[in-house]
């Protein structure tokens, strides 16, 4: 690997071309700033494409709605761990961002009178939790896809420069902590570049691939989160991951809740309908967390299915085949393709599956990255911004409200871009000089990978990490498993530091790319395990067996000791905490209460 690094200068560099990156880029390019977007894959192949549910905005097109009600639902969804200033900001900005998107050409579904059609979605309520309200705006079942297309076209018009099939490798920070850009590799040539910038925005998405069972696409390797951790930025609330109860075991492909709605039954190794014991009334239709917990308990107590007893079955063989094919189109094909099972005749293997990362790079609602400093717990890291799933604003807190993920990336993508524009326009500055060691970390990583002998296999180390995360920090968590998990993941981290690739070629070397991605995944995995082990309560998506539901601590939530954000630092593998902002921008605090649906 050549040590030569070519430097290119831009006003702003954005890493990631999913929804958040594209939205930020529009803001910067339309302000006339020279803007680069670095992306591993073509923008419209980003994982935002997978978002189907829609985007939340209290437009009130179908019935009365209000941003304050949306805010209440979001705070409640977050189990009060979300920062209420950021949540108010997001919910108030939602209408503006959705209408802007409409003006960019987004083909939203329409009502008969031509307004944006809004559909109901779980957790969306009117009048502070009173009754369901139609708040989700969608474009058929291709909302994310349509959104990316509309924003990509807008960027082309605004002359955003795209660097497609480039992988960002490391953040460049100087001695004062200011961020001055990133290093990146052009896959086509294997050459290393530095993108020297006045503003650097991370929009790299989530890291759902740390889990063995994940709904995330293979590209979701937490690159921005890993880069930030290596550059000394703490990671916030990494113990909080949203899981879905039924993903195909060994594959992760989602099986819609509609399958249980149509009469699907969960069974253990004894073919027992175990949900009857956990939820005698609702049975298989109990809420997501109750079903997930029951599934994990069955597996942990030895009643899992298959040779490794590590999944349960979803049984629809008793249903009328015609009904299945009519009401659940696609499920038969998913069974055949990903489980090798004809679900009309055999049961489907399923496990709780990781879906969304709530934590990430800590930011304020302006999209600026913030870290504890000498004066406050939220000091701005100059030149550094983050938005979307890689960031933690924190609007999702301990659990995300449905359709708030697309809203998050629109609002905070725009906000990060807008703040960067304001800073660069108000006080124009030339590029700060790069420090002498700007490329050292990157070159050392590449050199290590090129010269490693007798090291570990990338695929095997990744699999070890994924299996450990699934077993030790899954949807339902146990103190002893978490403690063992911390030791295990630190051992695996040592393997990852010694990965070896056989193919040393430069051009489109996918083995090298996968090894570099694993460097990022492992940071996220360690942060998750350590943060989860330390948090001794249950809150939102972090549910511990030893923090049960009691009158003093409903649902196991311990506000006296744990109403605070976790901050994990790579250096020293240590944790710190900061308080939750319970003060909204203009309205009263949404007071703590038990989260019940």
């Amino acid at each position, binding site marked *: 690997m050549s040590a030569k690094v070519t430097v290119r200068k831009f006003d702003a560099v954005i890493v990631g071309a999913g929804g958040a990156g594209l939205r930020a880029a529009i803001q910067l390019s339309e302000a006339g700033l020279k803007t680069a977007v670095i992306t591993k894959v073509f923008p*419209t192949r980003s994982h935002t494409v997978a978002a189907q549910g829609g985007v939340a905005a209290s437009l009130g097109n179908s019935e009365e709605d209000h941003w304050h009600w949306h805010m209440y639902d979001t705070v409640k969804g977050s189990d009060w761990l979300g920062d209420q200033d950021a949540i108010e900001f997001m919910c108030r900005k939602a209408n503006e961002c959705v209408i802007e998107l409409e003006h960019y050409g987004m083909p939203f579904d329409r009502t008969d009178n031509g307004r944006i059609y809004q559909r109901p979605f779980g957790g969306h309520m009117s009048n502070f939790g009173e009754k369901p309200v139609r708040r989700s705006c969608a474009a058929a079942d*291709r909302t994310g896809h349509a959104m990316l297309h509309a924003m990509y076209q807008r960027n082309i018009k605004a002359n955003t420069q795209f660097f497609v099939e480039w992988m960002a490798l490391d953040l460049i920070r100087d001695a004062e902590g200011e961020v001055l850009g990133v290093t990146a590799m052009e896959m086509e040539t294997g050459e290393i570049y530095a993108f020297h910038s006045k503003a650097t925005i991370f929009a790299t998405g989530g890291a759902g691939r740390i889990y063995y069972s994940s709904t995330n*696409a293979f590209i979701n390797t937490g690159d921005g989160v890993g880069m930030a951790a290596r550059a000394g930025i703490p990671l916030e609330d990494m113990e909080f991951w949203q899981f879905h109860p039924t993903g195909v075991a060994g594959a992760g492909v989602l099986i819609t809740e509609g399958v249980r709605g149509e009469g699907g039954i969960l069974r253990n190794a004894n073919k027992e309908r175990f949900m009857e014991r956990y939820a005698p009334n609702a049975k298989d239709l109990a809420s997501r967390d109750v079903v997930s917990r029951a599934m994990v308990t069955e597996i942990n107590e030895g009643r899992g299915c298959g040779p490794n007893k590590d999944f349960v079955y979803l049984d629809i063989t008793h249903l009328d085949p015609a009904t299945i094919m009519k009401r659940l189109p*696609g499920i038969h094909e998913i069974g055949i393709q990903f*489980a*090798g099972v004809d679900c009309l005749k055999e049961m489907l293997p399923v496990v709780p599956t990781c879906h969304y990362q709530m934590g990430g790079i800590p930011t304020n609602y302006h999209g600026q990255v913030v870290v504890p400093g000498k004066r406050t717990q939220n000091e701005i890291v100059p030149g550094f911004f983050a938005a979307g799933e890689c960031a933690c604003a924190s609007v999702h807190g301990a659990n995300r409200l449905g359709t708030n993920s697309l809203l998050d990336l629109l609002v905070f993508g725009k906000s990060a871009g807008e703040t960067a524009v304001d800073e660069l326009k108000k006080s124009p500055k030339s590029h700060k000089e790069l420090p002498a060691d700007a490329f050292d970390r990157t070159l050392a990583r590449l050199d290590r990978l090129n010269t490693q002998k007798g090291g570990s296999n990338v695929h095997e180390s990744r699999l070890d990490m994924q299996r450990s995360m699934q077993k030790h920090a899954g949807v339902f968590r146990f103190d002893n498993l978490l403690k063992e998990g911390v030791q295990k993941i630190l051992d695996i981290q040592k393997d990852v530091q010694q990965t070896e690739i056989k193919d040393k070629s430069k051009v489109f070397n996918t083995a090298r*790319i996968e090894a570099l991605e694993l460097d990022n995944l492992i940071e996220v995995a360690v942060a998750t395990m350590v943060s989860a082990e330390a948090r001794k309560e249950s809150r939102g998506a972090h549910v511990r067996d030893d923090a049960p539901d009691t009158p003093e601590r409903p649902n196991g939530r311990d506000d006296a000791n744990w109403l605070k954000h976790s901050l994990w630092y790579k250096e020293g593998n240590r944790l710190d905490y900061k308080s939750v902002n319970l003060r909204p921008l203009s309205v009263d605090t949404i007071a703590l209460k038990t989260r019940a649906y």
Partner: protein
Amino acid sequence: MTAEQQRVRTERLRWHSRRAFLENDLVLQRFWQKQPEVLEEMQAALLERLLVLEDHDLWELLSGRRAAADPAVQGLVELLRQPAVQ
């Protein structure tokens, strides 16, 4: 096309098999596990035609909801659709 050009072409296709959502990733991963280190030219040419599709359109083909107009491309789709376990 030289052997090196065909190798690079194969690697590029391997990367283009990283898709926007998991279903496509998994089907393509299964395909690659059964291929030689370097794809033969005809196979590579067909795969190139398939991988330029948008992910939802690709999944329409891979899930059998729609057939490709070109029989040669459809032949590759059929190969991709062969499940891991029969």
